[in-house]
């Protein structure tokens, strides 16, 4: 990668993405070859909001490369609680580690943190902003199952607040992918993502109904619509119900349709899909390990 940090999927070129995915494939094929790759290196985990899954995934990836991790622990027990700025926290913690992983509730936190540290920094989610390592594992899963070029993908659910969606949509503009966005009117793509998609020449095709586009999809990427986005329970139930899928929904889909979801799901994908060949979300979650190993391997191997 050309840069030292991974902050936003919009910074990634096709070459950057392919370098990570190719490395991930190498790791998948022969994990043992990477077992001592970063022995003696330490990864700092700075999670300012709970995300057990992402944290475990980075922790596991670093250890599988032979390295170790140090964890700042829950915010409640740290200096942050005493009012320390993020800028100060990361400047202190970078002395403990060879690279940092940051999860923070404010948008732009990783961009700012990267201005204050010299070690590589990975954005593991900044508020409703970006979550680029999730994007890389999504892209890896798409490449393995459907291919990234000549792809027709539908992205459905909460497109307004869903950071995985924003990162994925921007990253896909590097490929010959036709993107469809399916959501309730109130949860359409935000202005800045729309701007980026237009700027990169991508067509933004938006739908309120899955039926309109389902038969032509190679991949359907489903995200959760959260209760707190709606003023009341009734409105939420009415809207969210329209974006749930089950095996019956898939009668209209191609036999080769790949269904993805960043997990955790609630009821947007019925369990009766789990045993079909369409279900790819658990494989997707498992891909987090080789992809994050690949990412860390590349960032930690750079001469800086």
């Amino acid at each position, binding site marked *: 990668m050309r840069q030292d940090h991974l902050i936003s999927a919009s910074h990634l070129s096709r070459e950057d993405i392919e370098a990570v995915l190719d490395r991930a494939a190498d790791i998948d094929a022969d994990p043992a070859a990477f077992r001592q790759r970063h022995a003696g290196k330490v990864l700092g985990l700075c999670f300012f909001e709970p995300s057990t899954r992402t944290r475990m995934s980075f922790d596991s990836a670093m250890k599988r490369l032979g390295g170790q991790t140090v964890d700042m622990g829950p915010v409640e027990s740290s200096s942050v609680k005493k009012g320390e*700025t*993020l*800028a100060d926290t990361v400047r202190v913690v970078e002395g403990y580690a060879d690279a940092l992983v940051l999860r*923070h509730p*404010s948008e*732009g936190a990783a961009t*700012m943190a990267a*201005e204050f540290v010299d070690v590589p920094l990975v954005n593991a989610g900044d508020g409703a902003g970006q979550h680029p390592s999730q994007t890389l594992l999504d892209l890896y899963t798409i490449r393995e199952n459907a291919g990234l070029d000549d792809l027709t993908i539908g992205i459905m659910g909460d497109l307004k607040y869903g950071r995985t969606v924003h990162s994925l949509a921007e990253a896909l503009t590097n490929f010959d992918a036709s993107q469809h966005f399916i959501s309730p009117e109130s949860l359409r793509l935000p202005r800045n993502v729309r701007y980026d998609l237009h700027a990169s020449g991508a067509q933004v095709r938006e739908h309120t109904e899955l039926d309109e586009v389902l038969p032509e999809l190679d991949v359907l990427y489903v995200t959760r619509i959260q209760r707190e986005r709606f003023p009341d329970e009734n409105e939420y139930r009415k809207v969210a119900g329209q974006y749930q899928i089950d095996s019956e929904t898939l009668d209209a889909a191609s036999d080769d349709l790949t269904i993805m979801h960043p997990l955790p799901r609630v009821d947007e994908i019925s369990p009766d899909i789990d045993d079909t060949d369409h279900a790819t979300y658990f494989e997707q979650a498992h891909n987090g390990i080789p992809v994050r190993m690949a990412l860390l391997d590349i960032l930690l191997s750079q001469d800086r």
Partner: protein
Amino acid sequence: MTDDHQLRVSKIRNGTVIDHVAAGQALNVLAILGIDGTSGEAVSVGMNVPSDRLGRKDIVKVEGRELSQSEVDVLSLIAPAASINIVRDYDVVEKNRVVRPDAVASIISCPNRNCISNADEPIQSRFTVLSDGVRCDYCETIVREDEVAANLDVN
């Protein structure tokens, strides 16, 4: 241009006249330039002055201070038609248009309340200038041209 126009521009002896400011933006112009009269310069402001080009315009005159191009370029975000006249001994010696800068810092505050630039961190707000607005360098929120004035952070 009418004599009346020339007269108005020439009224100060030495300093800067910012002409063709969109009507209603004169006080924002002063705020962006950090001119509040405390450093003693004589400042005069005309608001809703009839204009051939704009119908109505505002005009700002600052005695005793020559504003540099980089100082005035940020004005392009709220007053894209503004012209900058440098006056010496009652003569306009230099007349320039504002040019859109590539980026602006500390002028606009990000309307996204959850943006790190609004938290208590040791950073300034910073925006990249687009063709029809500006974009927060931190959270990537886009502020359209017509929303810039409402998001000025200059007081």
